[in-house]
Each structure stands twice: as structure tokens, then as C-alpha cells.
């Protein structure tokens, strides 16, 4: 049995006491509601959210830093959703992680990704030359595909309507996704660009509660966009980036950016409503299930746009049960997907999601986050669900009527 000496003046309590009102962990009622809301599931096990909060409340810093729960937490905030005191678990866990990181107790891949992001502007470690080569190759292919020389994928163009921030996978394993997005921009008939100064949408500083890193990355995004004098920053389908850039950026920078920030599905809905984009719903003449990414839905309130867009591209949207505020994490949240050591664990964390997917009886599912997309696809294979998984914007691109 461990014996901890209660010491209230820890670094952790100092960090947590800086939280805004309502996130004050001292207010924890120890009601245990959070424990029942956590979906991390292997019949038993997983983090015990209340224990995390209680360690923090009682200042048991070393116990928390050493706890596997800190990194097992998916930061999905499903527990926070029903907390009667409004304690923000994502903040508690990420602050705890920041202390662990300070003691070098951080998963290797996450640290490497952050180092790359700071050094090379993306987590893959792609150099500027490699980025430019990749984009120019896609640009050529794209004009051919569209049979229109004016169909371009450009970078570093000032005064465009849009700056698009891709997911690292679009410049690595899945360039076709970038082409798909290019088709949507093309159909919108607006100018758009990529930036070689800032080549990826991620911000892993958020996962590890490192506000300095998080702020540094967010500032670079904003400054790049402002330098290019664009009108709107368009985010690739990425959950945590959506949350950071839609909900946290003003707080991180201490000011509002000089441009609008929108996600790709939201932009598509906007242009569809204007009558500019048209989709053919008969391409998928059946219902498609929709998975709410926690960062976009519960944590940022982005429930409707992806559903609206999906509804335009198929026979109808099938809800997973439960959904929206009560949606279940794909099992890959909180940075766990970014850690290559966790593949086996992710099949356990994703079991409740797999059960939900199976219960639909459908063969096709869409989501609005490329991380969820990867995890859901792996779940489909692992649990033999036979379910095709897409992102909403990718489906929209396929159903586009040009």
C-alpha cells in the first residue's frame, strides 16, 4: 500500500488552481458520476476518472504522474458531460500529462511528433522541399484528372479566399484525400492555397497539456494565415485541431485571429446552401451511419454540419446510440492513436464503439475526423464488422456533381 503525505502546495495544485471558475477540481463532489460515464472498456479496467480527480485534489502529484490512467484517458470528456460541478476532465488530465512530460514520462511517439511539428512544421517530419514536391505533383495530377488546366493545387498564394490546413496523412499515406478536398474547392469556384510555412493542422501540445507548445503552434498557424491575407482558414477533418482552433485559440493567443475559421464539412454545407455545391444522393443509395468525433461534437458543439452534409450524399444518416453529447469515443482519442505502441490497447478502448457500429447492421459509416476514421477502420477489420469507413468530406467529394 502506498502512503502519500498530503501536501497541498504541489506544482499540480498550482496549475489546477489557475483553472477558470467551474473547472476547479476542489469542487469535486466525489459523486462518482464520472466513473459510470467513462467508456474505456474491457469488461473492466481502464482509467477511473474520479481517482484522477481525487489524486489531483489531494495533491498526490507523484501518484498521478506515475499512473497509467493519465495516458489511458481518451480525453473524450464524456465524464465531464454529466459532472454536476462541471469539472473539465480534459484539463485535469492534460495538466497532469504536462507534469509527466516535464519528468520525461511521455510516450516516445508523441514527443517525437511534437519535436517534428516544432522543427519541420508538421508531425511527419516532412521538409519544405518534400512538401513542395508533393504538392506540385498533386497539382499536376489534379489538372489532368479534372481535364481543366485551371484546376490547381497551389501553395503559398497570397490573397486567396481560403487557406487549407491538411491533416498530416493527406501529405503522407493518403494524398488522394487532398485531391478529394481539391475537387470540393474547385467546385466552390473560389481561390485557395496551401502553405509551405505551415503544412499541418495538428497541435499535439493540446494532448500533453503543454500550453507553451500549444500556443506556439497555434500562433504560427494564425500568423501564417494573416501573412497570406486570406479570408477563411479551412481545417481538414481533424478533431483536436478543430477544438483547439475553434474553441481555444483566442484564449491561447489572447486575441481573436483576423480571419474566419471553418472546417471542411461546414464549408461544404455553406456552399451547398448557397446553391454552389450540388451532390448526387444516389451514389450511395442507402443509409450511412455517422460517428461524432468527441473533439468536434461534445467538446466543441459541432454536431450538425457533418450530418447535414452526409444527408446530402446518401439515403439518410443513421445515428449510433448513444450519440451527440453522449457519443462514445472511437477509442483512439487523447493522443492514444498517435502512439504506435497502443494498437492492441486501442482495440480494447474501441470495443464499445465496435458494438455500436455492429448494432446498426449497416455496411458504411462516416465521420468528420481523420483520426477517428483510421481507428474506426481498424475496429471494423479487427472486429470483422465489414464496415466501410469514410470521412464526410471525402464522401461529399465523391458525390459532387460538377
Amino acid at each position, binding site marked *: *500500500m502506498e502512503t*502519500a503525505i*498530503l501536501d497541498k502546495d504541489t506544482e499540480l495544485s498550482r496549475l489546477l488552481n489557475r483553472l477558470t471558475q467551474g473547472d476547479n477540481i476542489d469542487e469535486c463532489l466525489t459523486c*462518482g458520476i464520472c466513473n*459510470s460515464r467513462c467508456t474505456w472498456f474491457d469488461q473492466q*479496467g481502464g482509467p477511473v476518472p474520479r481517482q484522477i480527480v481525487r489524486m489531483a485534489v489531494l495533491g498526490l502529484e507523484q501518484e498521478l504522474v506515475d499512473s497509467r490512467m493519465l495516458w489511458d484517458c481518451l480525453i473524450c470528456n464524456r465524464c465531464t458531460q454529466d459532472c454536476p460541478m462541471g469539472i473539465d476532465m480534459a484539463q485535469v488530465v492534460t495538466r497532469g500529462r504536462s507534469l509527466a512530460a516535464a519528468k520525461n514520462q511521455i510516450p516516445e511517439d508523441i514527443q517525437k511528433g511534437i519535436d517534428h511539428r516544432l522543427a519541420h512544421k508538421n508531425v511527419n517530419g516532412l521538409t519544405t522541399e518534400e512538401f513542395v514536391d508533393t504538392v506540385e505533383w498533386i497539382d499536376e495530377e489534379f489538372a489532368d484528372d479534372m481535364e481543366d488546366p485551371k484546376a490547381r493545387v497551389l501553395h503559398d498564394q497570397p490573397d486567396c479566399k481560403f487557406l487549407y490546413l491538411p491533416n498530416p496523412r493527406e501529405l503522407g499515406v493518403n494524398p488522394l484525400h487532398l485531391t478529394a478536398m481539391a475537387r470540393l474547392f474547385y467546385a466552390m469556384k473560389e481561390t485557395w492555397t496551401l502553405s509551405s510555412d505551415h503544412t499541418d493542422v495538428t497541435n499535439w501540445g493540446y494532448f500533453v497539456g503543454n500550453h507553451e507548445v500549444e500556443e506556439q503552434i497555434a500562433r504560427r498557424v494564425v500568423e501564417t494565415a494573416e501573412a497570406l491575407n486570406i479570408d477563411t482558414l479551412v481545417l481538414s477533418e481533424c478533431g483536436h485541431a478543430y477544438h483547439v482552433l475553434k474553441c481555444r485559440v483566442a484564449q491561447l493567443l489572447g486575441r481573436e485571429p483576423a480571419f474566419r475559421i471553418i472546417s471542411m464539412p461546414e464549408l461544404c454545407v455553406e456552399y451547398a446552401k448557397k446553391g454552389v455545391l450540388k451532390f448526387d444522393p444516389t451514389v450511395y443509395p442507402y443509409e450511412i451511419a455517422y460517428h461524432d468525433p468527441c473533439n468536434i461534437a461534445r467538446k466543441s458543439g459541432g454536431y450538425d454540419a457533418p450530418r447535414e452534409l452526409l444527408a446530402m450524399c446518401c439515403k439518410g444518416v443513421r445515428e449510433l446510440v448513444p450519440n451527440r453529447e453522449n457519443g462514445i469515443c472511437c477509442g483512439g482519442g487523447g493522443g492514444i492513436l498517435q502512439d504506435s505502441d497502443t494498437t492492441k490497447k486501442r482495440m480494447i478502448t474501441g470495443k464499445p464503439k465496435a458494438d455500436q457500429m455492429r448494432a446498426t447492421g449497416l455496411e458504411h459509416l462516416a465521420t468528420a475526423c481523420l483520426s477517428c476514421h483510421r481507428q474506426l477502420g481498424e475496429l471494423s477489420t479487427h472486429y470483422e464488422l465489414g464496415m466501410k469507413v469514410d470521412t464526410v468530406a471525402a464522401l461529399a467529394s465523391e458525390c459532387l456533381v460538377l
Partner: protein
Amino acid sequence: MTHSSDSVLVLGGGIAGMAAAQTLGDSDVQVHLVEAADHLGGNAASWACMATDECRQCGACLADDMAHQTGCHKNISVHLNTSLDRLEKTGNGFAARLTSGETVTPGRIILATGFTPFDPSVLSSLQFDNQDKVITTAGLNQMLKTETLTDFLGNAAQPKIAFIQCVGSRNRKLDRDFCSQVCCKISLRHSDKLLHLLPDADITLYHMDLQTIGKETRCLAADLSTRMTLAQGVPAEILTDPDTGRLRVIVEDPDAGTRVARTFDLVVLSIGMSPSEELNRLAGQLNVRPNHWGFFNTPDASLADGIHVAGCAAGPKDILGSRQEGWTAAAAVLKELGHDPAQKADVLVWGDGHKADAIARTLAENGHTTVCFGRGTASDRLTFMDPGRILSVDGTAGRFTVRYEQDGGRNTLTCRAIIAAPEPEYRTVADQAALSGALDLTVFASIPAGKLPEQIAFLLDYFAPETKTGSRLALNTALEARNTGRKITVIMNKMLVHGALGQQMYDQARKAGVKFLRYNAPEDILIRKTDTGFSLTLDEATLPGTSVTLHCDQLVIPKVPVPGPGIDNAARLLKQEKDREGFLQSPNVRHRLTQSPRKGIYFAGPAHDDVDDTDLSAELDGIMADLDFPGPAQNAGVEINQKKCAQCLTCLRICPHQAIFLNEKDRPEIVPNACFGCHLCVVNCPALAIESTSSAPDQVAAQIEKGQTVILACQRSAALAAGSLALPDPIRLISVPCASSAGVNLMLKLLVNGAAKVIVAGCHDGNCRSMNGSTKARKEVSRVQTTLPGIPPDKVSWHSVAANETQKLARIISDTRISSKDL
């Protein structure tokens, strides 16, 4: 005495409304009792009886009892299916148009609109709308009342049942940061009832902090803790097992320290109280302003002139509390209307603690000439006998003769009423050598802020489960000390958040940085003295496997009351039995909270439990209402035939109400106003000298026809339960004043007159208004069954049936008919 002819409008026919209407009606005030539903009784009318092998003091049967009395009260006009339509203030009262079209002009209004149970559909994760095996306390009551639970559970042999507490309570996010006060008590009683009905049921009760408030709840929780699982931590989500379809919740397993899935056949959501929808509708009309929760239990709520509030409309409370508040509100209205009694009762207060002193002072301030056998400062109308010792108490309602000893001399005084408030004993730190240096909380609380040490630890639930007073004083003191910058830790098994502001105060204390540690049992704490104070090491209940060590300069522990010699002495001299827990209180709901079976004698405050100042003040208001407005004397329907009386004095000995005394001719005489008409004296008189004018055996036996099955039903329980039943022809129900009046004599007469069977049905043990009526009736039935030759034992039978157990009575009748046919 000036009597106003003003009538009173009572809005709401639940417990509080009926209690108020009865008190007003008994003082000859015309009452309009307006009830939106099609029956009186409010929410309590749909609650099930919680009796197991004996009454559990839930009070639900009072709804039927009171509805019956209210319905036939000559001064009460009951308007069912009716609401207030429009209200106007007039010169000296109101003009109220009712939805029935009628207009009444009351001088005063009592708002008793009660509560609406919280709707759990709001919390969609609990699946109340989707899963039929997720029910609420109200749903469980319904099933218990209709005896349909076993079928509903599919006759499962060992059903697994969960209770989830605080659904819609103690939740700041839902803007419901208050404790609903009654739910823990209800769920514990429900669990007890379920274990009685289904002994193999596997029951788990998930709670935030089990509100073991009141001695019965403390004892019941201790008893249940060995028969079921009491688990801290409430699930907020109910899942469905994809394979079996059974209900599943994820909870922390305290032994394993991880989360586990638990499967259940039934989940009961213990829903909190919301203000009634009726009140929401009426608030504007009445010009009253409830607080943000919709109640009137905080200073920011306000009423309007001429409008009083009672019961759960004021704030969450239980049935007995609501009834007491109804009486009190009615008394206040009567005073406003000029009905104040010409002469205030002179009262003896018995008790030497500060609560007895407070009682005596309040009585004197309210015009009662008061003598207190305790310590305090004398004032106008208030005398202290200090030191004084009571030697004997004789007499009965209206005139007690008390012999006492003072300064070596013996004296006698008379008084109209006696309030017994003797101090219990206390378990304190002083009794524990190992804790020397630790302070009792009351001592610590008097230390001025400037002299407080730097680090202070409060240890609750240590000697016994914490009481209301102890936990509230600890919370207050902790918060105050914290606000002067001290480091405060409260170590507890649970936090009691009773009262309107309990939850908010607890929230405030945590927010202010008071640290709260939880432990499961006193053996989980190791206390060591150090050079500078204390070092405490405990197993933190929320962090299994982790023990924490804490240093403090001062350790503070509240004292815990336990029954003691003071209470024993008062019980002996007042000829009252102590209750199950060893305190001085009538064990049954008809006299509770403060009345005794002996009219004019009251048990208040420390006599019966740990009570806080709010409780004490409410109790005292209730007692003063009863003193000022006792209602008309009832005709007891019992007379002593002095020609037959052998002066054996059995009746004096046996009367549970001390309503028989020896007159100056040394003959027993019944004091009409003290007699409850139970007929125990009638059945016990060896000379058959005490005669019933209302229910004489010959008269009763003459009522039946040959071949009938006769039910002798107590008029306050089984007869009320039969109220709405259509009885088949061969069943003859005869209402008797008390089950005990069904003596051997009457049963034999019925059988001789051709009764096929005799069923005696009365209150559950512990709920007889005359204490032992049910026990006596059962004994009489057993005498017929076992000692009289020639009578088959199944000719007579005894059943306990509460006023709200209609379905049970129907079953008893149906079972009897089936077995008759078999014969």
C-alpha cells in the same frame, strides 16, 4: 376572544393542506380545500406502505386516514379536480374564482401545492424512457401498492436490484444544488421492504453520501449494511447488455480499484423533488416569489400578505414534517384571524440542556407561563427549578400534578402540558484516553478566530454515524476557519447535506479550499499524537490502495448523542415506553413527531433524537399550535358502568393513554378528552364493566347474517383500506374503533351467530394509535385458535393491513374465499 368569520382557502389537498384544513376546521373556521387531482392525499396517496414485520414509520397511510377525516369534516369544503382560476385582493382578504366557476372570499390563503417528482427523462443516459426495467421510486411505490412487483420481475428467484440516489438532486449543473431530503430514507425503506418480500433479492444502493438523518435511518442503514450493498458513487448512465438485454451500469469496484460492469434486473431511480407545476402556474396570481429552485426555503423567496406556505411547496420534506407544517401554518392563520386562545396553557419543560432552555424561553415569549426543570435565566413568565428533581407525574390532559423536590423540600405544582426534552448522553473525545488533546467540536467552535491553530482536522462519523448537528457545526466551523486562511481538512464517511442550504454550504466549503477526505470505517484511520499535534493516516475511500497521511495542530471531533439515564428517568416517570432506539418518542406516526400517546405530554428535541435548531423550532411551533388549538373534545364511545366495576384497576394499568384516573370516590373515571376510544379497557375489564356505546359486542354480532365472512377492521387502517373495494356478498366488513376491540367475546358471538369466518384486520405493529391494539388483537385471535375446543383454527385469522394497503386487503379476502371453496 374575537372570532372572525373569515374563511380560509387551502391550495392543495396533500398532507400539509389536509393537516392545515383539519386544524382550521377544528377551530370552526370554514375551509375551502382546493385540489387539482381527483382525490385528496397528494403524492403520499400513491405511496406504498413500508411496513415489514412492523411499521417503519413512513407515514404514507396517513394520507388515506387524513383524506377520510378531511372528507367528512363539517367545516371543510373539498373542491376536487379544481384549481385557482383568478385571484383578486379585496379590502380584508381575497376574492378567488375557482376553475369550477365558484367564487370564494377567503380571509387568508395557505399554499400547500406540494411537489412534483423530478422527471428523469431529462437525463437521457438513464434510459428511463427506453427501458421498462428502469423505474422511479414512484413507479416502485405503485408496484408495491398494487402487489405487481414480483410479476414485473418475471418471478426471478434472486432478482438483482439497484437504487440510484440523487437523480435530479445535488446537481448544480441542473440548477438543482439542493438535497431532496427524503430520498435516501425512502430508498432504505424500499430496500428493507423488498428484502422482506423477496429475501433472496440482491440489492445495491448507489449513493453520493447516504443521508442517514434521524435515528431510524441511522439504525436502518446499519441493519441493511449487512443484508445489501451500500455503495458510495452514483452511476449516471444505464447501458443495455448487448447479449442478454439486461441493464448494466459501470461503477468503481472498491476492492479492485477499477471500474466494473454490474448487471441488474431492475434499476430504481431515486428521484428528487421539484416544485409543483401548479405552483409555477399560480405564483404570478398569488404575487408570491419562490427562490430560483421554485421553493420558499431560502430568505430570497417571498410570500405576499395573507398568504402562508406549508409542506413541500415550502421545500422538500417528509410526510410527518409536512403534516407538522400544515398544523403550524393553520395556527398562524388562526392567530391572524383573531382566534388566539383566551388563556395560554401553562407548561412544564423538562430538561437541563440548552435546547430545553430554548424551548422554555420560546414558550414564555409566546405567552405561556413556563416552569423549566433545568438551567437558564428566569424571565417574565419563566421560572427555573434549578436544581429541581421531578418525583412523580400524575393526572392527564389539561391537568397534570407534578411532585418535585427542591432545596431539600418537596412540593407540588400543576400544569396543563409537559414538554419532555431531557438531554441524552454524549460520546465525546473526553471519554477516549488515546485522543487526549483532541477537542470536542462544541468546545472548538467557541475559540475566537485569532486563536485558531494553523492546521485543523475535523473527524466526522468516528464514534458513530454523524448527526445533523455535528456535521453542520463541523461544516460551518471549517468554512469559517478556512475563511481566516487556516488549512482545513474534514475527514468523513459522508457529508450530511440536510436543510435547504446544506448542499450549497458543502459546495462553498470545497470551493473555499476545505479538503474533504473519505474513509469507510473507523478502523481505516490511525491517529498518532506528535509533538505539535496529531498525525492521521487513513485509507482514502476514493483511492483504493492509497493511504494518505495528514498532520494537524488540532484534531476536532463532534460528540454523538446516545440514549442515557436522563431519558430513562423521564420515560419511567411519564409512564412511557422508550422507542426502538432507546429514545423518548412515540413509536408511531399518529403521534409523531412530538406528541405522546398521553395527551398533553410532548417529547421534543433531544428527548427523541439529535435535532438541529431548524427542527427544534418547527417542533415547537407544532407543539404550540396543538396547545393553542387542540380541537374539540371527541366522544370516545366508552363508559364505565360503576355498578359492575369491581375497582380492580386493570383499566388504569392498561390504558395506553393514561386517560383513566381514580376520582375522589376512588372509582375509575374516563377523561373524555384524553381517551382515544381504543376499547382496550373494554376488552380487558374482567368484570365487563366498561361498555362501548359505539361498538358493543352484542350490537356488532347482531349485524351479521349466517354464512357471512366477517372482517373486523380497525377504523383507522383496514376499514380505510376497504374504502374503495367492492366487497362480494358473503363478505361483511365491520369497522371497529381499534383491532383490540375484537376480543374473544366478540369473535365467539360472531361465530355463534353463524359467521363462516372472522378476519381481524388492523394496524401493523408499531402503528396502532393506542400502541398495543394490534398485539392484543393478534393474541385474542390466537386464543380462539388454540385454546377453545371445537373451533377449527382457520375460522379466525389476523392480518395487519395499513390504510393504504387496499390491494393487500383484496388479496386477503380473495384468498379466504378460495380456501372456503376448497373446504
